[in-house]
């Protein structure tokens, strides 16, 4: 499957090269093309950094938001529902714009592009993480809580040592999905000017007037990045499943 994608992409590029298109803008053997490619690739740093920081924060928020959903108390469950429904209803792009332009005014703080992007992505994703964790935790057998009860574990220890390790193993594929999703959604923070892959591509298009060639490289950049991440997630899954 992976090979096939790469083959199609390659065929596409080669077909373009033979025509009268402008592949020279990204041809690494020419000096100009090399500089352009380096410029495009330099966006990788912020794409990866933003995504990783955002997913880490969103997993933490997701976990904290998921726990009240499992409570017997209906008000606690209500808090969870309220958060998930509200956050899930806001488009990511809208949230990014609001956090960057609106939040500083509301909260009276200055917020730079990086943190605005990270916060917006993390908040937006956290509702999904919360639902994933809720499903994962609910899938753990009731007997595990009862066994924890009989060996006198308190709530936090029960969660930390018994329930969550099992739940996380089960939701790992879903968490991997969210990471891939996050890498893709991070392209949206280009609108507030974060110098990530998409922003770099947009800037190059403006100076070179070669959207097809530049955006094709952009597609390949995301493709390769995400295929690598998927492979890493799958390896992690395998590793965590030995022992079960």
């Amino acid at each position, binding site marked *: 499957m992976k090979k096939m994608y790469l083959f199609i992409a390659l065929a596409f590029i080669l077909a373009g090269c033979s025509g009268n298109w402008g592949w020279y803008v990204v041809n690494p053997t020419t000096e100009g093309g090399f500089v352009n490619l380096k410029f495009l690739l330099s966006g990788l740093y912020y794409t990866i950094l933003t995504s990783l920081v955002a997913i880490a924060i969103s997993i933490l928020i997701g976990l904290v938001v998921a726990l009240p959903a499992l409570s017997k108390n209906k008000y606690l469950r209500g808090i969870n529902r309220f958060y998930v429904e509200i956050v899930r209803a806001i488009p990511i792009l809208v949230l990014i714009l609001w956090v960057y332009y609106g939040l500083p005014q509301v909260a009276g703080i200055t917020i730079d592009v990086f943190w605005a992007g990270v916060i917006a992505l993390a908040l937006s994703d956290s509702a999904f993480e919360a639902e994933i964790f809720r499903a994962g935790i609910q899938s753990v*057998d009731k*007997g*595990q809580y*009862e*066994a924890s*009860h*009989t*060996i*006198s*574990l*308190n709530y936090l*220890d029960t969660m930390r*040592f*018994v329930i969550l*390790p*099992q739940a996380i*193993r089960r939701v790992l594929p879903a968490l991997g999905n969210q990471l891939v999703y996050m890498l893709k959604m991070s392209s949206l923070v280009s609108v507030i000017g974060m110098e990530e892959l998409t922003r770099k591509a947009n800037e190059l298009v403006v100076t070179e007037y070669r959207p097809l060639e530049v955006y094709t490289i952009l597609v390949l950049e995301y493709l390769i990045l995400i295929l690598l991440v998927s492979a890493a997630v799958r390896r992690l899954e395998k590793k965590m499943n030995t*022992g*079960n």
Partner: protein
Amino acid sequence: MSSNIDNQIICVEKISKFFGSFQALKDVSLSVNIGQRIVICGPSGSGKSTLIRCINGLEQQQGGKIIVDGIVLNDSSDSLTKIKSRVGMVFQQFNLFPHLSVMDNLTLGPMRSKKITKIDAEALAMKYLERVRIPEQASKFPSQLSGGQQQRVAIARSLCMEPAIMLFDEPTSALDPEMIKEVLDVMSELANDGMTMICVTHETGFARGVADTMVFMDDGEIVETAEPEKFFTKPKTRRCQDFLDKILHH
């Protein structure tokens, strides 16, 4: 049942339990002395499991009183915490932690709730693994063990908390026939060592050999309480007789 107040370790007084509109327990009272070995039997849905689950706080009773080892079980989490640490429980489905090795299954409770060091907890775990005769399985995971071995690990896990009372909720019902004996043997040894036990089980051989008191429950009530010999040979009530006919002659 002879009950001497000084010796009493569990006192259940007129407890009731409802699941929705279904009444699982109807004013049930039970007194257990130190060292007493009670076997509870009865048809399914008669409230046996619910009764012992109330004793360690897995279910909350509605009405009535439960006192375990001098501690009154009430809504305060403090009383529940104390009682939990005095009462061990073994389940029909073992309920081992599948992501932890046998050793980690055993040391988790002592290390987290009793704040025992890892070294001491492991020594304790080995002691009880030897007692249930599977010390060589310490580094394996539950899924690598047979059902009988898993249940013995579960017993050892409870013993690691050094409880005053052990509750067994149909400990052999999920086992293949050839594995039942190894679990019952461990339970018999435990009884011989003087452990106070309440067992919900239909293993009549075990009941005759180990129990000093039989309790028959039906429809949320304790119908009959007797010594095993009398219980099995001359049950007083019709309901008990019917039940015994079913489990003894098949």
